[in-house]
Structures are given as C-alpha cells and as structure tokens.
C-alpha cells in the first residue's frame, strides 16, 4: 500500500465529505492508500454514482413488454423492435468539458455515447444532439464567447460524427442567457442489434483474462468525472487538463474491432472506459459479474512517460475498452486487434473474491470490495424548496404588437430560426438511411439491415421548466411524442438527460425532483419506458444556475415507408386543418420573451388525454394515406408553424381564422399544447374531417395551400400577408449572419 499520508485536506481536495470518508474507512477497515482515495473520489462523484439523483430516478417507469435491457442495468437500455431486432440508445451530457474546451469537449461527448452503444453489441446507426448556449446576439464579450462556444461545439460534433461515419440526423439548439458560461452539450446515439447479440458489461468466468484494447493511456481527462461534479468558476479554465482529447479514427477502428470480436463469440464481458476510465470499468464489471478483477498497471499501454498508478487509474483517455475474454480464445482475439492495428494488452484476470485489486508490478496499490465501490456509494435526499406556482399573465400588461412585424422577429430569433448552419456541418446522410432530413419535426431513418423505419426527436422547452419544472418536463415528453406522431411514428422509448444546477441548493433540488415526476407522468401517460439516460448537476456559472433542462429524446417506429410524413406543404389546393383547440395563454411563450422581453407566467396547460387522442387520430389519418404534411405548434405558436409549413416547396397558404374577440397577437403566437397543422388533398378533405370527427378531437379547416408563395392570414376584419421568400430569408439567415459577421 502507498504510504502517502491521507490528511483531511487531501480528502476534501478529492471532493469527499468527512462523512463519506468515514464510510470509506468502515468499508476498508483501514486507511485508504492514495490511489484508493482517488478511486473512491471518482466513483462516488455525482457523475458516476448519481448520489443526489438516484432516489429520484427510481420514479421513472422503466419496464414494459418490449424492454430487453432496463435502465441502469448496463451501459444503455435495449428495446425490442420486432423480428428479432432491437435498438440500444442513450443520451449523455458533456457540459463541463464543452464549457472550457468546446471542440474537444463536444467531440469526446459524441465519442463517449457511441462507445456506450457498441459496448452493448449494437452497431451505431445515427446520432442526435441537444445543445444550449447563452445569447449569440450582440457585441458584448459574453456574446462573443457564446458564439465561440457554439461554433466550437458544432465543429467538435461534426469532427467526431463525420469522421466515424455516423449521421447526425436531428437535434435542437436553444439560446438563453441562463446558459452563458455553462453551455449544455447532450449527445444521443442509437444502435441496432439482434436480440442474441446483446453484450454484457460483466466480468464472468473466474480465471478469464482481462484485455485492455484501444488508445494508449495518457494524462488527459484526469479525474474528469470529479471535475464534472463541481460548479464552473472563473478558475475552471485551469481544469483544461480534465478535458479529454478525441480521436474518432481510433474509435472507428475500435468500433469495428469490437463488433467483429463480439460476433466471434470469444467475449465473456465488455465495458468501455468512459468516466473514471480504468477504475470504473474494472469495478463495474466485477460488481455486475458478482466476481472480482485483478489488473496490473504496469501492463497497461501508455502514451506518456512516468505515469503514476494514480494517474493510470484516473485517466479518462478516450477510445479504450476493457474486454473479458473466454479463456483459451486469446489468440483469436489478438488476431482481430492486430487486423485493426489497435494497441492491446492482457492486463489481468477475473477472480472469485469480489475485490477490485490493482497491482503496480509486485506491489498492490488498490484492494477494495468492487460492489461497495460501484453500487454502495452514498445516497442523499436533498432539501427541496417549496414550489411557488407562477401566476397567469395579465394580458392588459402586454402591449399589442403588430403580427406583421412579430412573425419575422420570431422566425429570426436564434432559438426558432433555421439550424441549417448547424446541420449542414454534420454528415446527416452517411449510412444511407436518412429518409427525413434535419429540420422537420422528427428525423426518420430507415435501417436497411433490419427492414425497420425509426423516427427520433429531442425536445425540451426550458423556459416552461424554469417557470414550472414538473409541467415543463411533462410538456417535453408530450412534445417529443407529438413530433413523432407528425412524422408517422409511434413512440417506443425515452432516454433523458437531466441538466440542473447544484443540488445542494433547495430550489435546484426541487427542480430536479419535480422534473423527474413530470417526465414520469408523461411517460406513463404515453406508455413509453425510460430506458436510461444521464444526470448532469452543478450546471452553474458565477451568474447562477441554468434553467432546468430535462432533455427528452424519444425514439419511435414507423410501420411503412408510405407513412413517413414531413412538415412541408406539398401541393397547391391542399386543405389545411388545425387539429386541437387554441387557448389564450401567453405564459412562457417565445412571443412574450422575444417581443416583450419577459420570461414569466404560467406555461400552457397540458391535458394528456386530449393530447393522446390527437396523436392517435393523426396516426390513423396518416395510415389511411390522406396526410400530405403535419407540423406541430410549439415555440412561436400557430403563426410560426404555418410559416414553417410554407418553407421548402415554394408554396404559400391562405388562412382564415374565425373571428373571436381574441387579440390577433395572442391568437397567432400563444403556445397552447396539443395542436397540429396538417394538409390533405382536396379530394380527401371530407374523409379526413369525418375521421377526425369520429375520433372526437377538435379540428377546423383553416385554409388552403396556394401556388403563390405568400402566407396570408385573415382574422375577422384584418388581413396579414407576408411573402414567403422574405420569411424564408429571415429564418435562414439569422444564424449565419450572426456567425459569419
């Protein structure tokens, strides 16, 4: 054992509380070595142990007849999609690394989530991203920094995803002051596999050799998991060594080698080295296998001179895997690694004593019970502040704003504006499956080897979540489901990324707890299991916590290619229907934020039963083949949804809204939930109306698609009209003009 004295200062520097250190002492029955202290520190960080969130996460519905691997069981959940095929998918954050080094931070976020998927034995097929930055408008130092972060993150995602050959097919980008200094980078990956190919991260078979394969270990990313579990401060830049450096080419080789290896039948268990690197992978595989693992640090391939055992254990160098090989099949495994020119070494073996034991040659530097380290970390239930419900917006305090100007202003607002500047940098067509390109409600991907059509969307309106965390989180689930329905898909699973501030602050902990409850209610209502996800706490900058951002990524299935639906109006003369009722609430709306500078009020009401009835009715119509286009109303309300539906085919729309005593700005830009704009051929108008009436959902024919590229909206006495080209121009140019100036 190491003889470095363990002082209270050293314990504190490792982020362990005095109580947690007491627990370490009682588990070991002695004082830990310096290496052991490091090992406990990273494994018991929030990032690895979920010590502040695990009791909350238990509220998620995680089971269902199609769930093959449950949330928390392995690196990612697995869902049956029929005919012996399954999907593995997950979202994960890389917020803190991206704040200090946006390019590498985002790139390695993508690399990490891809490894989580192929560790399951699945071939990764597509990516999505959910991104949040501070405002990129204006010439302040902060907005320049935000633009640099935005550009760097997008370039980093592009670098990694493009090189490894996975299409980034959907995502979302929002800009809000609360993310200044603490951007959010959540990366999603989905992979496909046969049921019998599911691989396990368990160290099975006492005596089996443990192989290390992939990039050599360096000093990058030292104790990154612990870094990610702190608030960002002015001094965080000094943490740059905690950010890893990605090598997508190495990962491509690793990916192909691992899939070949898993197909060979030589593997007893496999686990990627992500957060907490070698430490996490050894103790987790041992814990899952009910076994022990013994490794020798001296055998680990290294790229830096003079790495100490502590550094090797805590390094988060990327593109590395731990593989437990069936004894006797080592030669076959070596041949595959050699084919792909990957460094590898046999660094240890599976034991039967339940211990994670690390040697440095003859000397034992770590000897701890694996299960206690991996699964018996501390758990906390923090104090939650009482919730003060937001009050309704008094419309008399909101001056009327001319819709003629408000609509282009909303379309030019970076959170609503076209994200083409972003996704044009991503290869979104490689693997030849992208049937609906980025920019529609949900991306649609045809998995040719399985003959299956998948849809995916990622959503979270964090303004709603800030004003009412539980309702906002439920709305995120409902919106994701609505987006899938608009593409013709039925949801099959959810992965969530919970991005919050420091949980020690009661208002933040309330947000976390309420959001989990909101997601749980939403997922139960839609009967979709949560298959896993990620928690990122301590998202704070010196200015305070971010708006709570529980990102929802939902995956759905489409039965037939003829059901694939997009948001764009397709032909002049088609009838436009609005499904769902329009209310008058402005709370939390982008109209209130963008035009009036107010981020307040009660978010729109959500009625699950009505919402579900509408999705079902829409899907029934799509399956009958009568829906030409479908687009949900979200940020910017009906006005923005109608404008976006006009984009893409050079068409326009003539809309007539029934005269009410409602203000036109409220009518066009409120964000009442559960509304979908569809278009149908004139010959299908009656059938569509009859079908919707039969389903008992509110709807109204509000206009027709026109050959003239003009959007005109009549409300009572007034007519508002915009040339579609001028709307396209503000929508498309908003982000490029900010980024290329």
């Amino acid at each position, binding site marked *: 054992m190491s003889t470095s004295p363990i002082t209270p200062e050293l314990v504190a520097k490792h982020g362990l509380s005095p109580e947690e250190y007491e627990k370490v002492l009682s588990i070991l029955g002695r004082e830990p070595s310096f290496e052991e202290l490091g090992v406990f520190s990273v494994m018991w960080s929030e990032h690895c142990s979920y010590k502040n969130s695990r009791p909350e996460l238990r509220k998620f519905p995680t089971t269902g007849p199609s769930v093959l691997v449950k949330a928390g069981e392995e690196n990612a959940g697995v869902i049956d999609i029929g005919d012996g095929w399954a999907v593995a998918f997950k979202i994960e954050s890389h917020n803190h690394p991206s704040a200090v080094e946006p390019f590498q931070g985002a790139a390695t976020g993508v690399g990490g989530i891809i490894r989580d998927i192929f560790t399951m034995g699945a071939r990764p097929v597509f990516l999505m991203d959910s991104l949040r930055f501070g405002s990129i408008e204006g010439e302040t130092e902060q907005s320049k920094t935000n633009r640099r972060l935005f550009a760097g993150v997008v*370039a980093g995602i*592009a670098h990694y995803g*493009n*090189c*490894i*050959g996975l299409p980034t097919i959907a995502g979302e980008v929002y800009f809000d002051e609360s993310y200044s200094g603490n951007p959010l980078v959540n990366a999603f990956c989905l992979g496909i596999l046969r049921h019998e190919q599911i691989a396990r991260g368990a160290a099975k078979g006492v005596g089996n050799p443990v192989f290390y394969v992939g990039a050599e270990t360096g000093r990058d990313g030292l104790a990154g998991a612990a870094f990610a579990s702190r608030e960002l401060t002015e001094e965080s830049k000094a943490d740059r060594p905690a950010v890893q450096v990605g*090598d*997508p*080419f*190495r990962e*491509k*080789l690793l990916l192909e080698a691992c899939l070949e290896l898993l197909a060979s039948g030589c593997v007893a268990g496999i686990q990627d080295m992500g957060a907490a690197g070698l430490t996490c992978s050894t103790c987790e595989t041992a814990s899952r296998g009910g076994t022990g693992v013994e490794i020798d640090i001296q055998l680990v391939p290294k790229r830096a001179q003079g790495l100490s055992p502590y550094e090797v254990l805590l390094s988060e160098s990327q593109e590395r895997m731990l593989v437990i090989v069936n004894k006797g099949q080592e030669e076959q495994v070596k041949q595959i690694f050699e*084919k*792909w*020119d990957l460094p590898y070494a046999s660094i240890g073996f599976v034991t039967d004593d339940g211990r994670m034991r690390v040697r440095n040659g003859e000397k034992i530097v770590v000897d701890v019970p694996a299960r206690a380290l991996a699964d018996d970390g501390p758990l906390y239930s923090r104090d939650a502040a009482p919730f003060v419900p937001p009050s309704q917006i008094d419309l008399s305090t909101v001056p009327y704003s001319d819709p003629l100007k408000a609509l282009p202003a909303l379309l030019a607002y970076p959170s609503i504006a076209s994200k083409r500047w972003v*996704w*044009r*940098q*991503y*290869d*979104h*067509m*490689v*693997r*030849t*499956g*992208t*049937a609906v*390109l980025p920019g529609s409600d949900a991306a649609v991907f*045809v998995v*040719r080897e399985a003959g299956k059509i998948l849809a995916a969307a990622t959503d979270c309106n964090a303004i709603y979540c800030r004003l009412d965390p539980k309702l906002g989180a439920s709305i995120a689930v409902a919106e994701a489901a609505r987006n899938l329905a608009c593409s013709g898909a039925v949801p099959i699973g959810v992965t969530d990324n919970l991005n919050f501030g420091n949980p020690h602050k009661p208002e933040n902990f309330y947000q976390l707890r309420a959001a989990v409850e909101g997601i749980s209610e939403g997922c139960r209502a839609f009967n979709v299991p949560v298959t896993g996800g990620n928690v990122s706490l301590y998202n704070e900058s010196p200015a305070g916590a971010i708006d709570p951002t529980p990102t929802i990524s939902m995956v759905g299935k489409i039965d037939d*290619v003829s059901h*694939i639906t997009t948001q764009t109006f397709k032909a002049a003369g088609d009838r436009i229907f609005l499904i769902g009722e329009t209310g008058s609430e402005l709370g939390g709306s982008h109209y209130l934020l963008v035009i009036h500078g107010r981020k307040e009020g009660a978010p729109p009401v959500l009625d699950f039963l009505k919402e579900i009835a509408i999705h079902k009715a829409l899907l029934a119509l799509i399956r009958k083949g009568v829906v030409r286009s479908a687009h949900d109303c979200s940020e910017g309300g009906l006005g923005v949804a109608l404008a976006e539906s006009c984009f893409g085919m050079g068409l326009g729309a003539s809309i007539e809204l029934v005269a009410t005593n409602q203000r036109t700005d409220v009518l066009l830009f409120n964000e009442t939930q559960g509304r979908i704009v569809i278009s149908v051929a004139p010959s299908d108008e009656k059938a569509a109306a009859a079908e919707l009436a039969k389903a008992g959902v509110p709807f109204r024919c509000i206009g027709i698609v026109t050959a003239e590229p003009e959007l005109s909206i009549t409300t009572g006495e007034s007519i508002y009209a915009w040339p579609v080209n001028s709307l396209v121009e503000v929508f498309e140019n908003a982000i490029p003009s900010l980024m290329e100036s």
Partner: protein
Amino acid sequence: MRCAVIQFPGSNCDTDCQAALLSFFGVEAEIVWHKKTSLAGYDAVVLPGGFSYGDYLRCGSIARFSPIMDAVRLAASTGVLVLGICNGFQILCEAGLLPGTLMRNRSLLFRCEHIHLRVESDASPFTSVLHHGQVLRIPIAHGEGSYFADPETLRALDVNKQILFRYCDDRGNVTPEANPNGSLENIAGICSHGRNVFGLMPHPERVCDSVLGGTDGRGVFQSMIEWVADHRSSAIKQG
C-alpha cells in the same frame, strides 16, 4: 459485374456502396480489406468515401500507401473501372491516378447537402447512360472538396473532355453561387486520360433509393454495369 469495394481503415461509405450496388442493381459487391494485395477477377473497383486514416495529415495521403493500392494501380493500368467517391477521389489524386488535388472548402466548414451537377461528358464508362447537359441532384458531404490543378492540367482536362461533372444550379447554369466548395471551374468529378478511372466528390450511392430523396445517383452505377457487360473481355484475369 464483379465489383470490389476497398475498405481502408476509416472508410465509412463502404457498406453504403455495397448495399446500393446489391439492392438496386443486383451486383454482388465484395468488401476488400486494404491489406489485401490482389484485385484479380474484378471488373470494377470502388474506393468509397470516409476518413481513411482519419484524414490526419492530408486527405488520402496515407491511404495511398496501403498494400491494396499497387493492385488498384495495376487494375487501372489494365482498363478495369476504378471509381473514387469523396475520400476515394482524394486517394486517387494522392496516388497520382487522377491529376490535381482537393483542398479545404472555401468556407473552411464541412458541408453536407444536396447540390446540382451538370453532366459535362457522356462519353465515359461512368456517364454513358446519362446525357450531356443533364442536371442531377446528388448530395455532397466533405470538408476538403475544392478541386485544384495548375492551368496546364486544367486545359488538358478540358481538351480531353475529362471533366465529367460540374456544380451547377437547378437549371444547369454553372455559376459561382452554385459552387459549394470553391472548386476551380466548378469541377465536381474528373476521369483519367484513359477514361477508366473516375473520381467525384458527390455521393451517387446516397441517391439510389427514392425513399432517401432521389434516384439521380443510379446513372453512374448503371453506366458502369453496362460498360462492363460490353467490355467484359478486357477485364484483367490475373493480378
């Protein structure tokens, strides 16, 4: 047609090309690992897109030293069809099988989108089923696709009608605005003097399926298949 799709470390459009050939033309394309040294018996060779060796150093500059490249050179010299798509085009230029080079996009950003191409010559094994002046809609996805060659080389390409595709607008006008990457003379694809080696930046394999946004890419593969059927005897039998 027997077709080989070369798999370099970092190739990522290899299975896309293989699937397109099989699904839409019934051609059994075989993935050939870059450490192999023979291409005997193949009528056509595809160097697919991707990031061979990570595109570290310079695109295609390491892949050209792969063991398989001697066999590619031999195949090219004996008249076998060699098609390089995107990274494959870059490798063919680095290997000296096609003239010129591909530089960083003018915007300095990676660009993935559908663009339009005008067929500049239908007198080649890769464009014979297309017609001169035809406009195709095919996606690009590259960061380094700006074609460059010295004036003398450009003149020779022009005179010999080796330029097979140029970037154009949707009506076939070759304009600076329609040039997505800054290529000289809007060049999107060129063939060798012997016309059996062809490199292009756009991805025809991505537009063979109407579900995936069009079938304008089929012409390139269809031309190759018909040419091989007509010239089967010229395929190499020894490697």
